[in-house]
Each structure stands twice: as structure tokens, then as C-alpha cells.
């Protein structure tokens, strides 16, 4: 896993930090902060993309503003050896936005969005009725959820010189 870790320097970190907070930050503002030329920043930005460190820039949207009023996560317990089968089933449900095999309290962790509580409940019942599903625990997300892209630690990547 250490192999995947890539070295980046102070300029790269300044670029990433700025874009994490606001992906539309001007190259010239980042250049000023780093005390290098705009060209250098553009070159570095492209290199971060090329190296696959930056996969894309995107907007952060509130799903509730786009017709999906309810967000929930399901913790699902399934019969032994049926995790893949249940995940495949979950991924076919249009409301399901994300599903993963989990290690710990539960077997599968899923995030779903729905237009209303009724629709979410229908999804829950559908999951529950799957013959390999033992238990579904639901948590409905309330209030504005918080996102903090700046909390990724980037600095340790710089220290490991050798």
C-alpha cells in the first residue's frame, strides 16, 4: 500500500488545499500564494491530474434541493456468503446511491436517497424481503450534513522523502 503513496511537494499541496475549499480558485491566486508563476501552477495542476491524484473537480450539491428529500443509510446483515449477491441486488435499486462490503458491526453499508419518507420505507421493505437479508438497520439523515474536504491529510506525503 505504501507503494501507491505518491510524493507531492509544497506547491502541490497549496493547489490541492485551495481547490478543496473552492474548485474555482483562480490559478493566479494560487500562484501568488506559492510565489511562483501562473504557468507553473497550471503545469502542476495538469501533472496532478495526469498522476491520477486529482480525478475531477465538481460541485457540492444538496440532494434535498434536487428532489430527493430523504437521505438514509442502511446497515445490513446478510446470510453467510451472500454479500456479493445482495450488493448486486442493491445496486439495481434506483434509490441506492452507494453500497459496499463492510467489515465490523454489519456486512453491508448502503446510502440511499428518496423523494419522501414513504419511498424510503418502500425501499427498506424491499431490502428486508430479500431472502438473503437477515436484518436492516436504518438511519435517516437529519439537518444539513457537513462536508469537510480539507480534512484529508496531505502533509505526511511530503515528509517521506525516502
Amino acid at each position, binding site marked *: 500500500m505504501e507503494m501507491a503513496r505518491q510524493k507531492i511537494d509544497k506547491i502541490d499541496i497549496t493547489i490541492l488545499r485551495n481547490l478543496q475549499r473552492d474548485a474555482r480558485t483562480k490559478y493566479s491566486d494560487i500562484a501568488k500564494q506559492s510565489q511562483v508563476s501562473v504557468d507553473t501552477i497550471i503545469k502542476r495542476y495538469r501533472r496532478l491530474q495526469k498522476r491520477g491524484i486529482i480525478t475531477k473537480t465538481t*460541485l457540492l450539491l444538496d440532494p434535498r434541493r434536487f428532489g430527493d428529500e430523504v437521505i438514509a443509510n442502511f446497515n445490513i446483515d446478510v446470510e453467510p456468503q451472500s454479500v456479493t449477491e445482495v450488493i448486486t441486488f442493491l445496486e439495481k435499486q434506483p434509490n441506492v446511491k452507494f453500497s459496499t462490503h463492510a467489515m465490523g458491526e454489519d456486512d453491508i453499508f448502503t446510502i440511499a436517497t428518496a423523494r419522501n419518507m414513504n419511498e424510503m420505507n418502500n425501499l427498506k421493505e424491499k431490502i428486508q424481503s430479500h431472502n438473503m437479508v437477515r436484518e436492516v438497520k436504518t438511519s435517516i439523515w437529519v439537518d444539513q450534513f457537513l462536508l469537510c474536504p480539507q480534512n484529508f491529510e496531505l502533509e505526511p506525503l511530503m515528509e517521506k522523502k525516502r
Partner: protein
Amino acid sequence: MSTPLDKKIVEYLTEDARMSFRKIAKITEKSTDTIINHYNRLIESGDIRGSTVVVDIEKIGYQGIAAFEIDITSSDDITSDHIMETLIKMPNIIVATKTVGEHDILLLAVIHNLEHYQIISEEIGQIQGIKNISSDIWSGNKKILPKYFII
């Protein structure tokens, strides 16, 4: 989100948040000022919460994601809002939400390895008002919907 133009703006910027307003204006055959006005309105209304860069977590040294589900004991001094504020300031915690159901708060954190996961668990456990933590680790580089959840 009201107009078809708003939808277009959101669509383009979701794919590339750095796309210039001038380019969007050209594609949609509107003026750059119109695009800027619409964009500002989308920000003011809260439809757009911001923009960010999506990084490949494995490339920056993370092995996976952990979900922490937390039960709290709130009092007059320590409300769930206080606890949320403390949590979201912790390094490596990238999503936090209050929940109704089995637990009170859900956190998603990026983790370097098992040891790091244990350290984060302990740090969360030390926060005042936190009664119980149950957690799951997701293996591999999971892509959640970046436009909603960063990763």
C-alpha cells in the same frame, strides 16, 4: 433549482467545476453575465453548496474509509451541534451528519491503516458527550457520489 438554464449550469460544473462562465455562455447561447447571475443565485439559494476537487484517496496514502455510528448523551452544556462541530474539525473526518434511527451521528473518515483507524476511534471516544461508537471499515477505494459526499 428553477430554470432549465440552472440545470445546465449545474450539469456542466458537476463534470468540471473549473469550466469558465464564458464557455458555458457560449454553449448555452447566453451572455456571460447571465451565467454569472444564475450561478450566484444558485449559491445564495443553497442549491450549490460549494465546489471541490476529488482526489484518489489511495494515491494520497489512504487505504479505505471507515463509518462511525455514534450514540450521544446531550445535555444543556453539550448539544449535538457542539459535538458535530468538534467532530467535523478532526483531521480525516470528511462527512458528518445527525441521524434518526439506530444511532445519533454518522461519520465517514478516511483511514491510512488499521492502526490509524484505532487512533481515530479512540480520539472520537474521548469527546465529551459521546456514549458509544460502533464502526465499519470499507475496504478498497470506494467512490461515493462525489457531487454529494466529496469522495
